[in-house]
């Protein structure tokens, strides 16, 4: 494979690298100029342009499978789709930050770190080898640890960063341990070779390795019982960072889980299905019940994201093409619901200071009708009420679960979604049924409005495109089978 082909297949990654590196230079040299705001603007536009360009470059790539770098890296229709989703989410998150958000994060480093994290996510998605997987994962995680602690004058933010880092390191350790066991028993780190070694009698060590590997990954998608860091980090991190956490990294991590289970370990699907079922049930229950008592909206959304991962895992546990399609659809809706929710949360300020208590939403419908209506749509969608987008994600994952004979899993899923509906409704209740105590600031910035309206349009009109999307997802996931 010659250089040109390499460059073209990994074009989005190279674009991000180039933009990131030039950002370093811009940030370093432009810093000295008198107008800091002007320099920030340049950095912002550069990073946004980078995502946009990388996204566009995806469209030029073929959906045939291309393997690069001695089998470390592969692209196909599925990975392209997931990359597109990640880039879109990253664009949303960065676009939201550019809304003059203070909290000490509006610095060039922030954008640079996010770029590097997104690059890591793209590598994760394309990883076709345990070593590439680990490299991508760490390239994603390290910048995220830093930006979680970016608000240096806040104890909570530092704590969030530290907690995230320590638990993340622990999960990396487990993942590495699992990977080394897998390597030891399978004799290779390449997914394809691992898959090939899984014929006949599977050594126990390999299964144990797979379990550790999956546990490490469960940390990254914050599936219960590996979810402990999520609420604290969501709460402690500066809100734009939380938005990023809520929208993007889970898409990449979920893709990784899919790659590992559906491709590398497809031969022992009975074993990993058990683990995924356990993770899924635990996440749905923890997510649904944990959110009820929360007072902080970021913590609540953290629990809600745990529950969402539980639902997605239910589709994954089915181990069928249908399940994979379900997960793809679920993650698609997840990105837009997250973007919509955070575009609203980031608009809530009182006297210029951001608010994040759930009770601050009281009476929002009379002071900010658009925000309240938007939040209501997002909440109903997250609760899975049709005809909004969230319902279709649930329909597909539970359909896959039922078709795979996992009816009890689907029943647990729908029951927890009723419990979940309670706390989504609580927010709607506050916004619509109660009066405001202290008014919030007027207005909604241009950036937030764009993200909000885009995600609302997708959420509300999702049913129009569901046939199309299901078809695309279906073709894309065929690579696994």
């Amino acid at each position, binding site marked *: 494979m010659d250089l040109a082909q390499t460059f073209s297949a990994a074009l989005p990654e190279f674009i991000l690298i180039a933009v990131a590196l030039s950002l370093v230079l811009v940030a370093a040299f432009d810093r000295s100029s008198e107008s800091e705001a002007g320099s920030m603007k340049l950095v912002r536009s550069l990073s946004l342009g980078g995502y946009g360009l990388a996204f566009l470059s995806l469209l030029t790539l073929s959906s045939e499978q291309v393997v690069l770098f001695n089998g470390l890296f592969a692209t196909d229709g599925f990975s392209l789709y997931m990359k597109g989703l990640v880039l879109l989410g990253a664009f949303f998150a960065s676009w939201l930050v550019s809304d003059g958000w203070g909290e000490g994060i509006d610095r060039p480093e922030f954008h640079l770190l996010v770029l590097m994290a997104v690059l890591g996510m793209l590598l994760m998605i394309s990883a076709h080898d345990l070593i590439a997987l680990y490299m991508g994962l760490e390239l994603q995680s390290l910048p995220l640890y830093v930006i979680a602690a970016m608000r240096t004058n806040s104890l909570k933010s530092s704590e969030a960063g530290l907690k995230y880092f320590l638990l993340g390191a622990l999960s990396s350790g487990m993942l590495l341990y699992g990977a080394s066991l897998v390597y030891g028993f399978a004799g290779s780190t390449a997914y394809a070779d691992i898959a090939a070694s899984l014929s006949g009698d599977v050594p126990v060590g390999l299964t144990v390795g797979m379990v550790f590997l999956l546990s490490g990954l469960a940390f990254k998608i914050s599936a219960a019982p590996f979810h402990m860091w999520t609420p604290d980090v969501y709460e402690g991190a500066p809100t734009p960072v939380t938005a990023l956490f809520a929208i993007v990294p889970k898409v990449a991590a979920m893709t990784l889980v899919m790659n590992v289970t559906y491709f590398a370990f497809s031969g022992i699907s009975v074993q990993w299905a058990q683990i995924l079922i356990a993770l899924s049930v635990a996440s749905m229950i923890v997510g649904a019940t944990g959110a009820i008592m929360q007072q902080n909206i970021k913590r609540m959304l953290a629990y809600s994201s745990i529950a969402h991962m539980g639902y997605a895992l239910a589709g994954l546990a089915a181990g069928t093409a249908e399940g994979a399609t379900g997960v793809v659809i679920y993650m698609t809706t997840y990105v837009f619901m997250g973007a919509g929710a955070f575009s609203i949360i980031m608009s809530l300020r009182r006297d210029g200071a951001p608010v994040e208590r759930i009770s601050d939403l009281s009476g929002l419908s009379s002071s900010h009708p658009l925000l309240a209506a938007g939040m209501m749509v997002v909440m109903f969608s997250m609760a899975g*009420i*049709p*005809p909004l987008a969230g319902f279709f994600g649930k329909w597909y994952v539970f359909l896959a679960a039922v078709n795979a004979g996992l009816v009890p899993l689907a029943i647990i899923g729908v029951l927890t979604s009723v419990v979940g509906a309670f706390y989504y409704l609580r927010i709607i*209740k506050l916004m619509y049924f109660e009066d405001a105590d202290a008014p919030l600031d007027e207005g909604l910035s241009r950036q937030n409005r764009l993200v909000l309206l885009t995600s609302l349009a997708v959420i509300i009109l999702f049913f129009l495109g569901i*046939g199309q999307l299901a078809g695309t997802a279906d073709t894309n996931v065929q690579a696994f089978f």
Partner: protein
Amino acid sequence: MSTTWPLLSVITFLPLTGVLFLMLVRGSEANVATNSKLVALWVSGFTFLLSLFLYFGFDPNLSGYQFEEQVDWIPGAGISYHLGIDGISMPFILLSTFLVPLSILASWQSITHRVRDYMIAFLVLETMMVGMFASLDMLMFYLFFEGVLIPMFLIVGVWGGAERVYAAFKFFLYTLLGSVLMLVCMLVMYHQAGTTDIPALAEFDFAPALQFWLFLGFFASFAVKVPMWPVHTWLPDAHVQAPTAGSMILAGVLLKMGGYGFIRFSLPMFPEASDLFAPMIFVLSVIAVIYTSLVALAQSDMKKLIAYSSVAHMGFVTIGIFSMNEQGIAGAMFQMISHGLVSAALFFCVGVVYDRLHTREISAYGGVVDAMPRYATFFMFMMLASVGLPGTSGFVGEMLVLVGAWNRADWVAILAATGLILGACYMLWLYRRVVFGRAEKPEILELEALSGREFMIFVPLTVFVLWFGVYPSTLLDIMEVAVRDVLGQIGPVQTALR
């Protein structure tokens, strides 16, 4: 009536376009309020006129579905955008499109804040209701069925009474819990049959063991909606807290979704299980009829009394449906339509006096007839229709149900008939305490007479209740073929019974 243009889709989604118009309304708050009301009234009125085309274009002698529209929605998966009506769904669509403009008129003065949002909620609700009755695809049916929750939750929660939050949550979570169990069953059915098309599913033979579970799942959903005893407790709360128009629609249309679901899904798709569970449903229904009637007797709140009476009347509906014979099902259908008109009118009766005195306590009234004779007349007519006086629509439905029940299991008919007596007791007692007697309280004497707008709401309701009571074949002729179709799908079980 040619079907070259998608009449059903237009009727379904026309109210939604009204929402777009409502969003465009600009101006001062008072202007917005007035214009919103007008837009909503015009849009829903026009929707009703359009739905009349359904009535006149409908050929009652044809079996199967008419005005069908089918477009691929999720290609290759057996899921399509499929609308169509038969003699069972058509009356419900007309009932919905008929009651919505009346409800909007009924809220004309009682809704004073967030009028625009209120009208949006009502129009969205109308689309969901009509779409649900017109859907011939299970997934679409579910979308609309669940979608109803969103506007209704807001109507109760934003414009309701003092305990509205509790009532709205209870309503939402009860119905959601029922629906999600139905959803799981839908997934299983889709897995089995490979399609979500309702006519295709009705032909599909589900294994009896599977039917058992599927029936229970659907039962969970429809029983909550109907509502059957003992899952009826959300209904009195929701009714008491909802604004007048909300109660009208809730009793008028939303309660019918459960009965409609039983006829559309449970009977034709799980005939063996329906047969198996029929005794259980009879027991629950008889308890509903007798117990809730007794509870209604003890109420001191007018709305709560009528809400409990709705549960009792719906008990007749479930008895009729699970009699699984022509009289029973037709009677249940008739009873549902009749109850839709009568209970909407009764809730409006409460709303009329509530708007004037701002209380629903029965003891606060007495001698209303002195101040509002015309109101007393309408109220009496509707009260008698609710009791099932011959000559009103209430009589036809109840009688057919009892005949159907007698043919299936005589003890059910005997026990259910006691509900008629109890019904007469609480309704007549309510009427006596509110309307008759001497008006001793000074505020009663100063009650304003019925306004022209209120008169305009009562008249059409009264006309239809009387019409269906005197000339029931208007409705029965439409339903006849469709009911036979359903019985044909039940077929084998039916013969096994006899």
